[in-house]
């Protein structure tokens, strides 16, 4: 079931600070979204509960708690279980993309992404979910 008709609030989780800043910059200034970021899966669960994003962007390869583990943690909490999640990954293998989608993600964004098109890309995923 869809929530808001328009994508407004995005939580971006990535352990690479450069990527976090570029994504925030692009999504805020180009796509006029409200963005919050955090740098680990552990922070992500608390951030999702507090921020109530329309969409969570989750890096796959993070130390300690990776993207799939973070998604499982989100799915295990009633407050966050239905929040749409899209993975972001540098992986290009189709088998890995299929595995990520099978975990319940609404899509997979490839790294490196084009910052100017990131907003359109996530909006398309969010709209068709």
């Amino acid at each position, binding site marked *: 079931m869809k929530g808001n008709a328009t994508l407004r609030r995005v939580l971006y989780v990535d352990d690479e600070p*450069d*990527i976090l800043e570029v994504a925030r910059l692009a999504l805020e200034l*180009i796509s006029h979204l409200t963005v919050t970021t955090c740098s680990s899966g552990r922070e992500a669960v608390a951030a999702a509960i507090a921020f109530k994003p329309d969409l969570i962007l989750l890096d796959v*390869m993070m130390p300690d708690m990776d993207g799939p583990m973070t998604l499982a943690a989100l799915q295990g909490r009633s407050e966050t279980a239905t929040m749409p999640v899209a993975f972001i990954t*540098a992986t290009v293998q189709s088998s890995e993309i299929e595995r990520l989608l099978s975990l319940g993600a609404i899509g997979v964004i490839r*790294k*490196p992404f*084009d910052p*100017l098109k990131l907003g359109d890309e996530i909006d398309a995923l969010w709209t068709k979910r």
Partner: protein
Amino acid sequence: MSAPRAYTDVMQELRSRFIQRTIQQREQLKTLAAAGIAPANLPEILHICHNLHGTAGVFDLAEIGDIAHQAEDLGKILGQTQPPALDPRWKELAVVIDNLCDLIAALPPRDLPDQA
């Protein structure tokens, strides 16, 4: 799509900072390579290459991202295989790391952070 001035200004700063960090990572790679590309330092090599693979292209440094990708893929395979003495691909990884370092060293002056 033309980006607003506020975006391009900040993006330029972020790019400059990324390049600064990439130059530092090159030094790390050179140190690791000098010690010998081996299983013991593979996790650190993979970490640096993964970071460059995912990030360089965002800052219009796709060639660096591509070589880092090549090194990351090769490193992942070698992480599950035999020790350097038994697998010639370790030497191949050393060559790729060397190429990556050369590429970073050859960044044109306009791409380097302002030293002032």
